[in-house]
């Protein structure tokens, strides 16, 4: 809102185009704050899961259900997608639009791969193991926690795809750059949440 802002919309981009305008910096700050709230959200879901994870109501237990091979693959895919989104931001800082779009595209594809595995996993549980939302307190808390994360991944995929489309239309500007940047922060955040899910839900479920 400053009345004397320098107009970067046209002309040369600065090194960190996402922080060039007041609006851009505000957006990044606001997004970090939002992630603070998201942390409490997932924290509460984790606490719920930990409180209920042994309440299997004679349904399947974590130990019987989980297939570590597939989960490890999913983890690997999602972690890689975090790396590719870092590459995307680096390309953005070098003002390489094509590379930026390519890395974002790869991130989306990896996200889709992760989501596909998750949907497959859920479908297996529901149809083969008779493990649905209503089976037990464990099942409810499992689907809610992991499902919330999955919904976040889905949202991220749609969002980043939309941003790719905008990059084609508008190019890399001080308006599009902050959007790319916050979507990357978001993507890392859901990645970190997944690391916790992998440990608390899957690893702990297998050993404990």
């Amino acid at each position, binding site marked *: *809102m400053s009345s004397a802002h320098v107009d970067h919309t046209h002309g040369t981009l600065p090194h960190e185009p996402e922080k060039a305008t007041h609006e851009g910096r*505000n957006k990044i700050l606001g997004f970090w704050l939002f992630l*603070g*709230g998201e942390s409490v959200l997932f924290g*509460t879901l984790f606490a719920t899961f930990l409180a209920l994870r042994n*309440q299997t109501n004679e349904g399947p237990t974590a130990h019987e259900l989980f297939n570590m091979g597939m989960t490890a693959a999913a983890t690997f895919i999602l972690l890689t997608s975090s790396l590719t989104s870092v590459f995307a931001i680096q390309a953005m800082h070098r003002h390489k639009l094509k590379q930026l779009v390519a890395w974002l595209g790869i991130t989306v594809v990896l996200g889709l791969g992760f989501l596909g595995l998750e949907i497959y996993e859920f479908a297996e549980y529901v149809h083969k193991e008779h493990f649905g939302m209503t089976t*037990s307190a464990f099942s*409810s808390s499992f689907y809610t926690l992991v499902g919330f994360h999955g919904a976040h991944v889905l949202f991220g995929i749609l969002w980043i795809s939309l941003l790719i489309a905008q990059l084609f239309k508008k190019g890399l500007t001080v308006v599009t750059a902050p959007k790319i940047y916050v979507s990357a922060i978001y993507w890392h955040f859901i990645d970190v949440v997944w690391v916790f899910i992998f440990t608390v839900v899957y690893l702990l479920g297998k050993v404990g």
Partner: protein
Amino acid sequence: MAHAHSVKHHKGLMDWLTTVDHKKIAILYLVAGGLFFGIGGIEAMLIRIQLWKPLNNFVSAQTFNELITMHGTTMIFLGVMPIIFALMNAVLPLQLGARDVAFPFLNALGFWTFFFGGLLLNLSWIMGGAPDAGWTAYTPLASKAFSPTHGVDFYTIGIQIAGLGTLIGGINFLATVITMRAPGMSFMRMPMFTWASFITSAIILFAFPAITVGLVLLSFDRLLGANFFEVAAGGNPILWQHIFWIFGHPEVYILILPAFGIISDVIPTFARKRLFGYSSMVFATILIAFLGFMVWAHHMFTIGMGPVANALFSISTMLIAVPTGIKIFNWLFTMWGGQIRFTTANLFASAFVPTFVMGGVTGVMLASAPADYQFHDTYFVVAHFHYVIVGGLVLGLFSGLFYWWPKMFGRLLNETLGKWTFWTFVIGFQLTFFIQHFLGLMGMQRRIFTYLPNQDFDTMNLVSTIGALLMAVGVIIFFVNIVITMSKPKGVANDPWEDGRTLEWTIPSPPPEYNFKQIPLVRGLDAYWKEKQAGNTEMTPSEPVGSIHMPSASILPFVMSVGLFIAGLGFMFSRDEFSNSFLAGIFNNYVVVIIGLLITFICMLLRSVFDDHGWHIEPEELEEEGVKA
């Protein structure tokens, strides 16, 4: 300036539906919050009428339960919180020396989601029965087995949508304070109301997501057959209590800290002295917010957490009395030796101090776990929380409304009527709630719809009801005052109280759309007072007069909230049986949910795709307005 855009200026209703101006959003919050406060107040009156004599049958037991639930829920989420947000919106950017909030669009979105959430909750009255499990919605009472109607669904979904709005508002104010301060406005020069709003917003950010999850779990239990709180399937009802109060206790600080902030601005103005112990005030506010997250289980002493947990939560709760005490003494020392003017605003502020102390003292009593076994779920608790909420927050809000009304609307509220409101409301308040301490100690339980005669409850309940009616009179006089005031022409000065200390009093009342023609340079705490002391009549500007960039109005926040509203209704009725096959088709297959969510997401998409370039007010226009003013 680079881009000259054609500007759409909406008029009338469209202006209000599309506005992103924090001053107009403040008025929207005030009107909607006032409306819900009125509804909650009527519910309170009905409760008190039912209880005025033993074995009364004015309302049925079921209706009574719905009344207390809706009264508590409405008052907290839809009444006082929006009025707090109204004052924050009206005042905070001005006190910072800013032209707007950090995210004007989100500001509007926050209002509309709150509004449609509140609307959804209140629709329950005409759509099959209101929620009846208390504003705390404890399971298993709130579970499908014991609350089979849709009442509790209206609660979970309505509060969910409204809570989203609150969260958005909190993030917006945090970012505003961090990035939008005028040159020279360091953190330790911010007015106390701004400080309080800042800390309140931080509490909102960290407390509201917990209730978001709680409400999700409860609605999944009720609507999808999940088992979070179903003991038979391994669930745990105590989990709900923990989640609810992890949010719930910080929530009471969300309510009271802004009132602390208001009082801390009003008292120095009318004592014509600077606030005593400014930095200790800031420190105490932060400490209260921090400790506020560590005490939630004091609401659960009687569920059997064991002596160690009870002792710890007891002690942490009592600790909060220390920073609170600091504040009380600071207010007293500010008044001490001041040239006090008892305007209505200052009367309310002064009355706040002793009443709030009383609420605090009963709070410490309740914090003593062994004694709480006696007090728990009696009228003693009802008396306690009304002392802090009504005697604290509501008096604070009245004070703030009388104080900032001229800034918001350009007219002073009538002082004579104001004093009538003050005396009727405060006397009514003491009559209503003082006596409830004794009712509680004598054993009258909370949330009972009637009681037997000859237990010595009768007279006290009658007194309490009379007090409540007197409070209603006070509120009605306030309303009359508003109507009379608003029918008069605008025209108060920039600084109608003449002793204004902070930046909002340096600009016209009401302020122009862009607030400050030139962003001021802040040279100390109580920026305006400092200039007055130096013999200046206005602030030194920090920039030359220039073109001012403004955000564009947008209907999207409104439509997005409508989308959420539709999706919420769709989700609630998704498992119902409909005789009409069309309705069955769209509800049971989640078509309504999907349509609602699509509306919301398409709006998000539009917002992302079409850049908001805003528009500019050029210096010549500023001059013109200056001439007119």
